[in-house]
């Protein structure tokens, strides 16, 4: 069983590790299938849509506690705050809704996207700060508080909608996707872990005392209220703390590499439902 897992993991890694010269040969659709199959074969009893619940799809006792907390979850305050912020115009009279399709409601599942004009991946959080700056407002800290309240509300309006991340027919988009994959599988830090070491090789297992979430659907519950934080945190917050935990120097929030790995992971969760905002240990 362990050998089969190791072989499957190695096969997945080889399928995704492309030499630089062969970048044009990368095949996200094939990667997607390999990634999906790896997790569904490794966890045959987990319903596909349940992967978005992270550690709770892996451990029954944890799940019971989560279900109790979800009865009346602590991220409700952030959702209400986000709703209020959405309804409050900027100084110039515009609103967040004016920056987004469908007034910003029920669109979270389309983020991140590759902006061909800007030539880079735009995450929901970056789009929100761009909206603020375009309307004469100061940008928010990417990791928590106001930004988390906005993305909590937007995630909430998209709950249950299926991720639909597109990679346009543009070599720069493909390069961003590949860079995200590379970041995900590259080892870093004193502990020499890659994201994959924990979330592809060891989901459902314990690292110290936490149960590891599977990489499939891992960002679907963002932003999250962590009991550990006593509050909300965004994708940026989690990437930074994960880096710190493997004793790697974290990047700045929404660094290009972070945006690219969010792009990669979100593409891999296409067809899975938005489960955010989420509650986690």
């Amino acid at each position, binding site marked *: 069983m362990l050998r089969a897992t190791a072989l499957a993991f190695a096969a997945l890694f080889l399928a995704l590790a492309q030499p630089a010269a062969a970048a044009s040969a990368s095949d996200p659709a094939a990667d997607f299938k390999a990634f999906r199959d790896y997790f569904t074969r490794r966890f045959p009893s987990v319903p596909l849509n349940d992967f978005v619940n992270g550690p709770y799809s892996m451990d029954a006792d944890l799940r019971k506690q989560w279900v109790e907390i979800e009865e*009346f979850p602590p991220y409700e305050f952030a959702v209400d705050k986000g709703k*209020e912020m959405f309804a409050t115009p900027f100084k110039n009279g515009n609103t967040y809704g004016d920056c987004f399709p469908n007034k910003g409601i029920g669109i979270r599942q389309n983020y991140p996207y590759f902006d061909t004009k800007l030539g880079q991946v735009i995450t929901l959080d970056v789009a929100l700060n761009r909206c603020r700056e375009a309307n004469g407002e100061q940008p928010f800290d990417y990791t928590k508080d106001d930004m988390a309240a906005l993305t909590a509300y937007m995630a909430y309006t998209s709950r249950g909608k299926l991720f639909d991340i597109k990679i346009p027919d543009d070599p720069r988009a493909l390069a961003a996707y590949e860079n995200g994959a590379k970041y995900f599988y590259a080892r870093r830090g004193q502990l020499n872990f890659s994201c994959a070491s924990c979330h592809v090789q060891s989901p459902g297992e314990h690292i110290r005392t936490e149960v590891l979430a599977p990489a499939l659907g891992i960002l679907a519950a963002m932003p999250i209220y962590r009991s550990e934080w006593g509050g909300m945190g965004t994708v940026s917050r989690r990437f930074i703390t994960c880096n710190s935990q493997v004793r790697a120097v974290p990047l700045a929030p929404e660094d290009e590499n972070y945006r690219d790995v969010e792009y990669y992971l979100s593409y891999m969760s296409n067809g899975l439902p938005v489960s955010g905002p989420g509650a986690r240990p």
Partner: protein
Amino acid sequence: MASTIRIRAIAGGDTTEVQALIQHPMDSGFVKDSSGNIIPPHHIEVVQFEHGGKTVFTALWGPAVSKDPYVKFSFKGAQKGDDLTVSWVDNKGESDSLVAKIQ
């Protein structure tokens, strides 16, 4: 300013189930801030639930109740559309209250 209190009160049969979620730091007095100074205790002490002029449940809380505290209980004698009054007071004398409709 929005209330700190969120209530879900649902009447089913002759019993009303009430869930409350309150926004409050519930600082225990055992945690230090980033400068190494103890954050003083700041927690809700009493939460009172009233229906029809009667107290139907009282929560007496210490600092070991989690941040953004939650409680669930149920009681008889209420109907859909009735008012449920919830109020809390903390160790600093701060307070908040809310009147919610039973669904």
